[in-house]
């Protein structure tokens, strides 16, 4: 039960957070230079986009859930299961960011889903 709650929080809050950060970074614009000063300027600009803060908040929830999961389960089990976020990511990219998800990409997502299932079965 605790396991299920932790994994749900890691996947839902983690993916939601990443979608918000992605949306914020699109508003900020492409990173053209790798110069440290340019990187700092991009980070400062990103912090002024509200979506960034929503995203960071959700990622913090996901992070503490991850710590909780890692305190009771193996890292080689926890991290592959969080690959469930592929499914959440494809759905979120489709609905929230207006990205087109090709049939080939859906096939990859399907493989990942079956892989996660096997990891779960391998833990019994």
């Amino acid at each position, binding site marked *: 039960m605790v396991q299920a709650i932790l994994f749900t929080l890691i996947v839902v809050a983690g993916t939601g957070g*990443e*979608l918000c*950060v*992605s*949306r914020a*970074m*699109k*508003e*900020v*614009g*492409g*990173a*053209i230079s*790798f110069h440290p000063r340019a*990187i700092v300027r*991009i*980070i400062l600009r*990103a912090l002024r986009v509200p979506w960034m803060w929503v995203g960071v908040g959700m990622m913090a929830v996901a992070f503490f859930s*991850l*710590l909780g999961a*890692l*305190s009771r389960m*193996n*890292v*080689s089990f*926890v*991290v*592959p299961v969080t*690959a469930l*976020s*592929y499914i959440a*990511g*494809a759905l*979120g*990219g*489709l609905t929230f*960011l*207006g*990205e*087109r*998800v*090709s049939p*080939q*990409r859906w*096939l*990859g*997502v*399907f*493989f*990942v*889903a*079956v*892989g*996660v299932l*096997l*990891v*779960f*079965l*391998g*833990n019994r």
Partner: protein
Amino acid sequence: MTPLKDSNLKTYLLIAIMVIAGPLGNVLLGKGMKQVGNELSLWPPSHLLHSGLAIFTCPTIWLGIASLLCFFVAYMLALSWADYSYVQPASSLAYGVVALLGYWMLGEKISPLRWAGIALISLGVFVVGRTNPRTAEHV
């Protein structure tokens, strides 16, 4: 605008950083949480405080956080010019790396079925990774 080829090269470079720093961070967090694990309790609040202190005074946890920060900065930069639904799956080659690191660094026992699952996840990642980086014109 940068030419497409240049942009692809930068994306691959950032993904390489993500694939190494991300799993290393997770494995270090796992190691740290096992070190402080038996002191953890969320209730009452005094126990929560004690757990928080135990976690954030553990050097291994901080090493893990530093590694994940490297991952996060590379991730943010990549997301600024490539689609989320491209970067996220491509970066997730990390799921295979994390199992190897867990096996080597933490001595975790990994069943054949789990290896098979992880291999399938990697196959899925490969299939997803061979799609076009940019599909949305704007947000």
